[in-house]
């Protein structure tokens, strides 16, 4: 059941990314390009995503997940060096290619050589992350 729910969630996520235009790198870069032809679509995607999730978080109060276990605890309100440096590095890559992890997988079947290369490089980056993280300690 956990795997079925995960499959459905992943599938809906992929459908949402495709429908919203987030697999189109120009729409993402258009959102980031405040000095060019600014494209506000991504704000609508974020807003559309945050509303159901805000309701979901409200529903977690005094309950447990349908398939058992516990809901994830809210992280301590700390913004440490790793969070900021990591987010800046991620933002640089996001701006360069117009892709983040979710859309890169959603577009893998039709993104051609570029899409496959991006995912391969991202996987290598994920494997290198512990070494970079050690530099920040």
């Amino acid at each position, binding site marked *: 059941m956990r795997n079925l729910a995960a499959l459905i969630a992943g599938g809906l996520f992929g459908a949402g990314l495709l429908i919203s235009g987030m697999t189109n790198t120009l729409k993402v870069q258009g959102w980031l390009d405040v000095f060019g032809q600014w494209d506000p679509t991504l704000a609508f995607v974020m807003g559309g995503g945050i509303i159901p999730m805000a309701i*979901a978080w409200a529903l977690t109060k005094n309950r447990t997940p349908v398939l058992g276990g516990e809901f994830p605890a809210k992280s301590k309100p700390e913004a440490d060096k790793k969070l900021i440096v990591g987010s800046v590095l991620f933002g640089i890559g996001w701006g360069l290619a117009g892709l983040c992890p979710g859309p890169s997988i959603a577009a893998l079947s039709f993104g051609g050589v*570029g899409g496959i290369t991006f995912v391969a490089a991202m996987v290598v980056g994920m494997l290198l992350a512990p070494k970079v993280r050690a530099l920040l300690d």
Partner: protein
Amino acid sequence: MNHDWLMGLLGGGLIGTSAAIFLLVNGKIMGASGLIGGLVDKSGMSNWQERAAWLVGLFAVPAIMTLIWGVKPTNITGNLAVIVAAGLFVGVGTRIANGCTSGHGICGISRLSLRGIVATVFYILAGGLTVVIFKHVLGVI
């Protein structure tokens, strides 16, 4: 409303609904970089099937949709050096920050997590600055 904005809102609603299902049913935060990263570096092998099933859905549903309704162009740059650099930055950055647009952005902001909000501010600022520099100043992208 502009058609693209409306589709953004609709697609965003689906994204939020998928994250809501993953949270309410499986009890997990649907962060793409965390779910993928846990398989890549084997830190998430305790629930690898759940992660793999999610990944299959994420890959297969857009694949099937594009087969039926035609491919939506990704407009990924043809500059492989830029793609490799971008992928490396995204891979390293999201793992160090412990989240990306879905985890910190959608799931974090919706529960008013300070870490999610701070991360989102910094990756948008860095992304915006990157586009300004590499597009308007250097003309690489």
